[in-house]
């Protein structure tokens, strides 16, 4: 590879950074720092804008690079990810989006706290939201590090560290100066760029095979060396039953986790009504579905055009399959077309990471300021504006994410994302569904549901083969591995639901009929919604 594509990619990426910083300055002029403005951008986005922003928030580098890479290496087993990531949106559309928009103001805890004693519930929901966000952030930071290593053509630790620090600094700037308005526009720009890049590559792959999808699949199967087994499940998650249960666990976490992700929930507050929230989810399902269909073509395309061996040679986890595919489709290394396409793909992937981390940082700073700080501050303390606290929280979370991102540099990105989804599904989803749909749900039930999902999920990860007990784990020298699966979802999600039920039936408190009525009426009609 020559240095040309690196220079061009850096140039394109700098242009993106310049544009996004311009957006941040532009939207933050003449704005008073009200909470309404900072957390939800004044609630004035249109469904289409919000749909693009949701898609921009959701389509992370892990899906763009990770899923296509997995398909390129393992064939059909990578495709299972795409399906889980998309089907999850039905849970959001049917059970969560409209009702949450109607009941809450800024965060997940708003919805639950409306029916319960506020303090314990806010602390619990705030803690789990911040935990989920930090896990997800670390995944994106690690992705940024690996991407820059690829881009600069060397894997020097200093370059990776600087990439992580740079991404962290940029996201703190976007969030603390621009709030939700800047974050949303950055996500919209990124969604358009990412979709345009993906469409271009997909068309080029299909042109290469003269529009014959069948030929594409057969070529991919042939080059993979696995024959038709490449087109069927089992290459990655076949084998023993531990691996199979691990996959089922992951599948469950993917489909239930999306509805518990704080940065996705907060997007529904940026539109004026529940109807607009529904229409934005319909937009985003269309965009996300189309995107994942194209990643399938790109994945099999990379297997057919580049070949799994070349992909594996560049990055063992397959994360570089799409950039390599772009290089080949443009005419190969050293040609102008190849250089340009490679640079575009790399810059788009960078933009993707920046937009996603900005969204997560904003959501978690809202949880810190609106839920944790508001509940935990001393009564006699000097009152500060919530927005000032949120800005400081964004900075603190940025520092924490940079530090963890540097520590976790060698962990697999897709694994970290799966973990964040598992924690979200175990800790956030049960409490949300119970408070929206269960008449008898009580404060104790709410608190138990959160911790009863959060603690087992985290403990099971510590006891899993990811942390210790095998040569690939984080601490290969230690052995505290008692739990066989890498993803805790299969156990911890049912535990979260069970704990919420148990807490409710054992509590002496009787659920407040009137407040349940208020939640139900408000959630379905939008009465009193802000």
């Amino acid at each position: 590879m020559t240095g040309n594509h690196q220079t061009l990619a850096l140039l394109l990426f700098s242009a993106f950074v310049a544009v996004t910083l311009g957006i941040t300055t532009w939207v933050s002029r003449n704005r008073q720092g009200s909470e309404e403005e900072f957390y939800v951008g004044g609630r004035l986005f249109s469904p289409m804008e919000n749909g693009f922003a949701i898609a921009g928030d959701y389509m992370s580098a892990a899906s763009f690079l990770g899923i296509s890479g997995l398909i390129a290496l393992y064939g059909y087993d990578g495709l299972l990810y795409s399906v889980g990531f998309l089907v999850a949106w039905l849970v959001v559309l049917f059970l969560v989006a409209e009702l949450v928009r109607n009941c809450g103001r800024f965060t997940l805890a708003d919805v639950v706290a409306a029916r319960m004693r506020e303090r314990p519930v806010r602390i619990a929901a705030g803690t789990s939201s911040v935990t989920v966000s930090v896990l997800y952030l670390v995944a994106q930071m690690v992705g940024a590090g690996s991407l820059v290593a690829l881009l600069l053509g060397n894997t020097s630790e200093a370059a990776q560290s600087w990439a992580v620090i740079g991404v962290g600094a940029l996201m703190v700037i976007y969030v603390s100066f621009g709030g939700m308005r800047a974050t949303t526009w950055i996500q919209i720009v990124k969604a358009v760029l990412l979709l345009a890049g993906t469409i271009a590559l997909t068309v080029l792959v299909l042109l290469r095979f003269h529009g014959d999808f069948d030929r594409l699949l057969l070529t991919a199967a042939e080059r993979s060396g696995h024959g038709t087994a490449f087109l069927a499940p089992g290459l990655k998650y076949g084998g023993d039953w531990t691996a199979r249960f691990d996959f089922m666990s992951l599948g469950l976490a993917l489909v239930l986790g999306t509805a518990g992700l704080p940065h996705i929930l907060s997007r529904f507050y940026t539109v004026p009504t529940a109807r607009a929230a529904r229409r934005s989810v319909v937009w985003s399902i269309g965009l996300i579905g189309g995107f994942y269909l194209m990643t399938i073509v790109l994945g099999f395309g990379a297997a057919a055009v580049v070949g799994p061996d070349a992909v594996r040679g560049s990055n063992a986890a397959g994360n570089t399959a799409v950039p390599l595919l772009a290089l080949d489709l443009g005419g190969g290394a050293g040609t102008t077309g190849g250089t340009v396409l490679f640079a575009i793909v790399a810059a788009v992937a960078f933009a993707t990471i920046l937009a996603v981390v900005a969204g997560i940082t904003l959501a978690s700073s809202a949880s810190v300021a609106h839920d944790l700080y508001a509940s935990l501050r001393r009564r006699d303390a000097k009152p500060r504006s919530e927005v000032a606290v949120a800005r400081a929280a964004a900075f603190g979370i940025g520092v924490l994410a940079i530090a963890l991102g540097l520590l976790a540099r060698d962990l697999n990105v897709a694994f970290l994302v799966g973990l964040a989804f598992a924690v979200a599904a175990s800790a956030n989803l049960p409490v949300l569904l119970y408070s929206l749909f269960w008449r008898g749900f009580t404060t104790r039930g709410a608190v138990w549901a959160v911790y009863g999902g959060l603690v087992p999920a985290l403990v099971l990860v510590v006891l899993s083969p990811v942390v210790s007990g095998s040569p690939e784990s984080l601490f290969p020298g230690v052995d505290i591995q008692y739990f066989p699966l890498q993803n805790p979802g299969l156990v911890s999600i049912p535990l979260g639901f069970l704990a919420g039920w148990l807490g409710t039936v054992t509590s002496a408190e009787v659920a407040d009929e009137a407040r349940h009525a208020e939640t139900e009426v408000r959630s379905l009609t939008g009465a009193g919604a802000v």
Partner: protein
Amino acid sequence: MRYEDPWYDALASGWGEPGTAGTRGAEVPAARRERKDREDGAVAAAQVYLEVQRSAAFQEVRSRYRRFVGPAVAGFFLWYVAYVVTATAAPGFMARPVAGAVNVALLAGLGQFLSTFLLTWAYARHARLRRDRAALELRWDTQELTRGARGGAL
């Protein structure tokens, strides 16, 4: 639909009208009276939500929502779980070829995409045609009632 309308009672109490409050509130400190009225208002507003919840119009909206969402959630969730379990437990079945390079697994995967798009479309249509209008009317009615119950202070 009929609610017991606390709107007129609240008006009669005269909260928020400086003229009457000043003359009648001579013996009670004004701040305390206002707070008491506000608490009464909150209780009355809670009563409004209970009444709306019991009204036939609301129950119709709720049951339309639940009659669609319940079966739809059960349907797509079972279909997804069946897909994941089959893919992991019976890869041999999934590998069975159908036409050319396309096998059962590929058809099932694309089927998941297709069913997601179809259900999204069906839900949006159902909500638009069967729920939105009634929900909006209930929203205005409820807000009017709670505003009345809170003595016009909202």
